[in-house]
């Protein structure tokens, strides 16, 4: 079940399937909320993580991050995350897990006063077109490991336009001013599909790749990547999940036996014992 934490593939359909799987698990358990015994909470979390509880990936991350970001997260089980799930958390979730969605509720009272709950706040899910574009540029910057300046150049978006869109109540960006942004997004998707490593590493491995990217020569980059010789692998990826076993097939063993029986004698074997003694 922990395989669900792995990237399941490159298409959105796979992610949707993963999210659906998470939802199914959510309904199966009786959640424990606000466990005041922190040692017990730790043990339950440990089991959740090991047994791929729906919220386990998030809990794993959150436990590591709660102190540093101030984001208070708790409550093992469905359920349940925090009063404020900030963008750093969301980005890290995206990076680590690529889950489509999770279910969240507030942190326990010991960590969050009730007035801190975003009770009367507007749901922050509503975005304007400008916010979409800004979010996409930020996301590409993070995914490709390049500064915003490079992303704006590669997308043929002026930086002044980007900063204008970043302002509250920014006007909806015209299509023409979005340049190659969505082509760059598609290119990034393709790159992630083709590479086993983060795309930024590959792009920065040779200076001309970054230059090609900034020039918007996405197809050339993909062609060069496809033409690149692939390293040999010891076994297909799926073999790691299917089994762990010996390195020989039964047919190999038969072949070895066969070779042993009919192998030509070596020169050392053809030397008679008497000749050996003479040496």
């Amino acid at each position, binding site marked *: 079940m922990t395989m669900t934490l792995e990237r399941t593939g490159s298409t959105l359909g796979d992610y949707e399937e993963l999210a659906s799987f998470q939802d199914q698990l959510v309904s199966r358990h009786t959640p424990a909320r606000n466990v005041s015994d922190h040692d017990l909470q730790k043990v339950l979390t440990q089991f959740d993580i*090991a047994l791929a509880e729906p919220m386990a990936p998030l809990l794993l991350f959150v436990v590591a991050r709660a102190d540093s970001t101030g984001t208070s997260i708790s409550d093992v089980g469905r359920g349940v995350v925090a009063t404020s799930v900030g963008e750093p958390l969301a980005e890290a979730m995206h990076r680590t897990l690529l889950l489509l969605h999770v279910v969240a509720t507030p942190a326990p009272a010991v960590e969050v006063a009730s007035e801190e709950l975003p009770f009367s706040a507007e749901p922050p899910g509503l975005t304007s077109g400008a916010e979409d574009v800004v979010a996409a540029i930020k996301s590409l910057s993070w995914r490709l490991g390049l500064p915003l300046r490079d992303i704006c150049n590669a997308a043929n978006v002026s930086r002044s336009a980007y900063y204008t869109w970043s302002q509250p109540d920014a006007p909806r960006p015209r299509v023409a001013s979005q340049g190659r942004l969505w082509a760059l997004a598609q290119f990034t998707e393709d790159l992630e599909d083709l590479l086993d490593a983060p795309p930024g590493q590959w792009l920065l491995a040779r200076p001309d790749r970054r230059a090609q990217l900034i020039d918007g020569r996405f197809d050339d980059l993909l062609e060069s990547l496809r033409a690149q010789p692939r390293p040999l692998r010891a076994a297909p990826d799926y073999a790691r999940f299917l089994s762990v076993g010996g390195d020989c097939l039964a047919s190999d063993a038969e072949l070895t036996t066969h070779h042993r029986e009919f192998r030509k004698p070596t020169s050392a074997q053809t030397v008679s014992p008497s000749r050996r003694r003479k040496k």
Partner: protein
Amino acid sequence: MSNFMSSDDEVLGEEREETRPLAGLPGADRTLLAQAPLELAIAEVRFAGAPSLPDDAGLQMRERLGAAGLHLAHLEPRQTQRVNLTPGVAATIDVVSKGWLLANPDGTIQVTLFPEAAVLQTATYHRWSVSMRPSLEAVLESVDELATPRVVIRIGLRYVNRFVDPAAAAVAAWKGRIDERFLGPICHSHLGDLVKGSQQQVDLAFSDNQGAILRHGPFIDERSARSVSYLLDIDCYDSTPSSFNVAELADRAEVLNRTAASLFQSVITEDYRHQLQSDGQTDEEATTASEGALR
């Protein structure tokens, strides 16, 4: 700490047909445990068809529960949020529902109320007839009056047990206490001594809509000077759809209690159960005590 589930509200040896364990599991020994491992007991009822809660639902519930003898001084708003994470797009958060958390001052007893679920959680469980059933009935009656739900989707009853032995320096210390079929690799001849931890889950199906999830395994216990303790987490559920009837729901929860007790006694060995019972009450005393409690 309290005792594990006991069918103490009935005459010993005579279990009502409707409250026997599910799937024909054997009835549990009802002797109370002197060294009880129970850390947490949770009863949850999920329902549908309820309109949103009144603005002062938490306050009303607090008063109703207080009148029923369950005094929960603390009241806090709660809400369920949905975080949407989509590749390439900023995360969004939607508020799905709003509810209330009621708790006693030390937080050991909590009631959570949402338009789609009511949860009773206690860390001071003593016995079913004292700690859970009356409180659950009070909670459900309040829910019935405040939210008037039409359909019940699921009843869940979960018991988190933590067996502690400060002298257990290795996982092998739990041989002979936990049934070896549950210990699994810990009983292996040459791997057993190498096992440092183990987290196992067993899914049981009693019928199409009823089942249990057992999670168990040894772990390093910080609270017990890093000795090896053993977690046994029993989550029984009944997801048979039904109308919202408080008495019926309490009976169904009681069946889950009986089932959980039977599972508990199937996982630990008989010797260990007797050890946990030692210094405890005898069957006769337990029955007498429970009868007293019922009065």
